[in-house]
């Protein structure tokens, strides 16, 4: 009996795989370098996270180190330094969210309502620049300005006042950190709100004005609501990132204010793992942070969907 021949494997748009390959082989070649980079420098390290479940010994390597299950996580749980780092991270993230987040929105509203285009361009040029400077440079500039021998304290001394320890006081460290963040990134973060403001339908303003709404009412009832989608989107991203408060910024200032105030999860990972040689604890802290961060991002995004906002990942998948 003759079996009906199995249908040829069909690609989605109807072409057989072979024909698709003949058509697309160059495109596939173009993907290869990028895919290799992803495999080696992203997916391989992702798998390398198994050291979090091992008693990892560098001279034995991943293959020969002993497995110890969740012991590293239990150790973390019992480690007061880890809890300090977590508390600092959440505190700093909270302060950043509260004090940093509104600044770019405010700046964008002011810039958008400016009459002079020249002043506007001039301001944008200056405000974007610090985003491109490294954290080392930003912290250095702060130190030269506000440090014990910096020029602000020089001025204070000339005026016969006592110098203020801006850069070394652990109690005011969160404020210093936010000031640095605003200095570096508030201007840049403004860009996305400015872009959203250019898409607002002018006829809305016109209609509101015809109905007698003054400039404050127009801002409250038209400008701010039209920014809502972007604000929600950025809040979600920020929440997903809440456990990464800014690694370099803290590692650079950890020595001057002390780990009590400046130790965050990332610096804990670095000091425990790479510096202290306790690779498994470091990896466990890093993995816990990565997983919780991804979950937070996912949770915040589905919350946004529930509130009827588009969020970052569209429901029908990425494209």
């Amino acid at each position, binding site marked *: 009996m003759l079996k009906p021949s199995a249908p040829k494997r069909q690609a989605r748009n109807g072409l057989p795989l072979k024909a698709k390959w003949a058509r697309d082989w160059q495109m596939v070649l173009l993907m290869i370098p990028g895919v290799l980079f992803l495999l080696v*420098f992203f997916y391989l390290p992702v798998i390398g996270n198994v050291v979090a479940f091992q008693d990892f010994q560098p001279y034995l390597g991943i293959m020969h180190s002993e497995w110890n299950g969740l012991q590293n996580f239990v150790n973390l749980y019992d480690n007061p330094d880890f809890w300090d780092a977590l508390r600092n991270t959440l505190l700093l993230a909270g302060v950043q969210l509260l004090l940093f987040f509104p600044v770019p929105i405010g*700046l964008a509203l002011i810039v958008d309502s400016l009459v002079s285009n020249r002043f506007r361009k001039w301001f944008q040029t200056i405000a974007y620049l610090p985003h491109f400077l*490294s954290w080392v440079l930003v912290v250095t500039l702060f130190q030269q300005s506000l440090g014990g021998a910096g020029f602000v304290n020089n001025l204070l001394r000339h005026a016969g006042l006592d110098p203020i320890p801006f850069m070394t006081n652990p109690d005011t460290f969160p404020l210093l950190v936010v000031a640095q963040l605003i200095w570096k990134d508030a201007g840049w973060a403004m860009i996305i709100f400015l872009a959203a403001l250019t898409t607002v339908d002018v006829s809305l303003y016109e209609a509101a004005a015809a109905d007698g709404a003054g400039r404050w009412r127009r801002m409250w009832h038209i400008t701010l609501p039209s920014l809502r989608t972007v604000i929600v989107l950025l809040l979600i991203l920020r929440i997903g990132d809440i456990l990464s408060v800014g690694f370099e910024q803290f590692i650079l200032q950890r020595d001057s204010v002390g780990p009590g105030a400046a130790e965050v999860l990332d610096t804990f990972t670095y000091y425990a793992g790479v510096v202290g040689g306790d690779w498994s604890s470091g990896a466990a802290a890093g993995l816990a942070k990565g997983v919780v961060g991804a979950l937070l991002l996912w949770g915040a995004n589905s919350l946004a969907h529930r509130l009827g906002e588009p969020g970052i990942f569209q429901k029908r998948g990425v494209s």
Partner: protein
Amino acid sequence: MRPVWKESPSPGYQAIKAVILGGFALVIVIPILVVISTSLASDKDIINAGGYVLWPSHPTFKAYQTLFSGGLMGRAILVSVFVTVVGTAIALAVTIALAYATSRPVLFGRPVLLMVLFTLLFAPGIIPMFLVVKQLGLLDSLWSLILPGALGAFNFVVLRTFFMNVPGELLESARIDGASDFTILRRIIMPLSKAVIAVVGLFYAVGFWNAFFNALLYLNDTSKWPVQVILRTYVLQGKSLSADQLGVHPPPQPQSLQMAVVVVALVPIAMVYPFLQRHFTKGVITGAVKG
């Protein structure tokens, strides 16, 4: 044109806005100016001013001559330039190829796209990253600063979004004329996307130039340190550069020298950035909205 429904600008509000924005701009500019001035100031200026100079009365390039005359800092500048140039070239090539290949409905396009987008969600962590770099034998090699940064998901999304907006008819007609995908990428897509490629190139270049933590993590050999690590060690932490490390005797006033290091870290960025600034909004928005 001012729309008729808008009230005329009120002088009071205009003044408040100008003060807020002007103040913000001044706070950004003044520290940078002070640093540049101090780096150019003569020893006498610095001693008279007690540390910082707002305007050098006798500008001198002595500090820069010292830096560029070799030694640790001279090498660091070379290292940073090498990492930035080679890194940006590699990263652009890899990202452009991948972004173009996934911007059309092609074989394996979708799984590869998901592979990239997943990197936005989860970070592999410092320790496993360090172990991989170590296993590959890249410790104490400049490639450890270049290769892990060769594909940025955000830059990928910016480029891909732009490529997707190139009309398909254009590519179709090129294909009918016998052009291969390689030719289309080189002769049609890339010339059309010069501006956005330039912006993404700037983003990559800034990233490589600013590389600090990777250098701290992967490079023990001080002769391979890039500018940012020097900046941290000798300016922020205040270790003094000895005459040997500078290759010059006697070294100039430490203050102007330190400020010159700051300026060297700063100037390359301040120089390219104004040329690309007008393209920022477009690039950032296409990336952010579609990402």
